[in-house]
């Protein structure tokens, strides 16, 4: 998977924010707040890993079931696709 535009991940007062590098006039220009798991998934996407690879990485990093990890990754990717940034 590959992001359609670049972002800068910044921790602000304990929250993780994604700040867009806009690139084109019609690019997404909002700021996205992520939780810790979201930030982890984002970094995997940034490294151009696909969904099954991210699920495996999530299982290694966090104590979650495969079912939960799969749903987390799918939901995250769906949201990014809806925003047309993935």
């Amino acid at each position, binding site marked *: 998977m590959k992001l359609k535009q670049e972002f*800068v991940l910044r921790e*602000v007062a304990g929250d993780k924010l994604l*700040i867009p590098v806009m690139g084109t006039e019609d690019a997404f220009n909002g*700021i996205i707040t992520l939780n810790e798991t979201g930030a982890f998934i984002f970094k995997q996407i940034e490294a151009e890993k696909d969904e099954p690879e991210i699920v495996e990485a999530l299982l290694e990093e966090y104590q979650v079931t495969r079912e939960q990890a799969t749903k987390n990754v799918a939901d995250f990717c769906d949201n990014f696709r809806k925003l047309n940034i993935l």
Partner: protein
Amino acid sequence: METYRKDMDVAGIRIAVESERPFCFTERCTAFECLPGEPDVTFFLKWDTQPPTAGEVLYDSSKYQILQKDGRRYRICRWDTDRKKIEWYLCQTSREPVCYEVGICQYNRGEVYAFNPLHCTDLAAFLIQFDAAVLHSSLIRFRDKAIVFSAPSQTGKSTQAAIWEKCYGAEIINGDRSVIRRYQSHWIAAGSPYAGSSRIYKNEAAELAAIVVLRQGKKNTIRKLETKEAYLCLLSELMPSMVNREAVDLQSRWLLELLKQVPVYMLSCLPNPAAADLLYRTLEDRNHGTK
């Protein structure tokens, strides 16, 4: 061959422009012209030249294109509607010292070329090299300190600045875009050649006392913002870099440093003197350590 040179100073950043042909600054830049000195950045004007024709296109809009070729980034401006004729291009040729080459392409209009060096740059990427950024805000100086009112257009930035001018004798330095800079361990706010429709653009600066985020409200209320809320409010009013990831990264770090040292208030208000009075009393209380 004779060399022509003009200097300007914005927020303490000394900008030199050198050219083999005569040129002048645009009207708004003229207000920032200064005597030649040791520059922080130099722009070299090159005449009758063209940018590369091939490369990786990083950004393309109706007027600008950003092209990457051989490790260099070219910002290309077209002046015609069919996007064929190039007016100028800019390329950073050195980081230390900071130098840019500006190609002036096919300029044959007769009159002396009017140049605005800031207009050619990716301004956010340019300014962050000097610990500075442009904030969409009006800027006043009151008792030798700067107060900036930041908000989206049509919220009332100019109105609040005008009320402070009328009620407290504050001086309006810029009506629409201020330069905020970390300078010699202080944070300053300075005027810029950009002023929106306000037409107020003075070359003045003062130590930054407070940033006030404005919102229209049904009554006047004020509160000090916590870091995250202040960060989100101000990030959306900072002039961003469109394609320079490093600049976006640096600017977001810069903003966090600003918030450590400069208080940010949210003033939800009506366009009346009572709103200014509320802010005045809040800043006075803060100065006296009661808030």
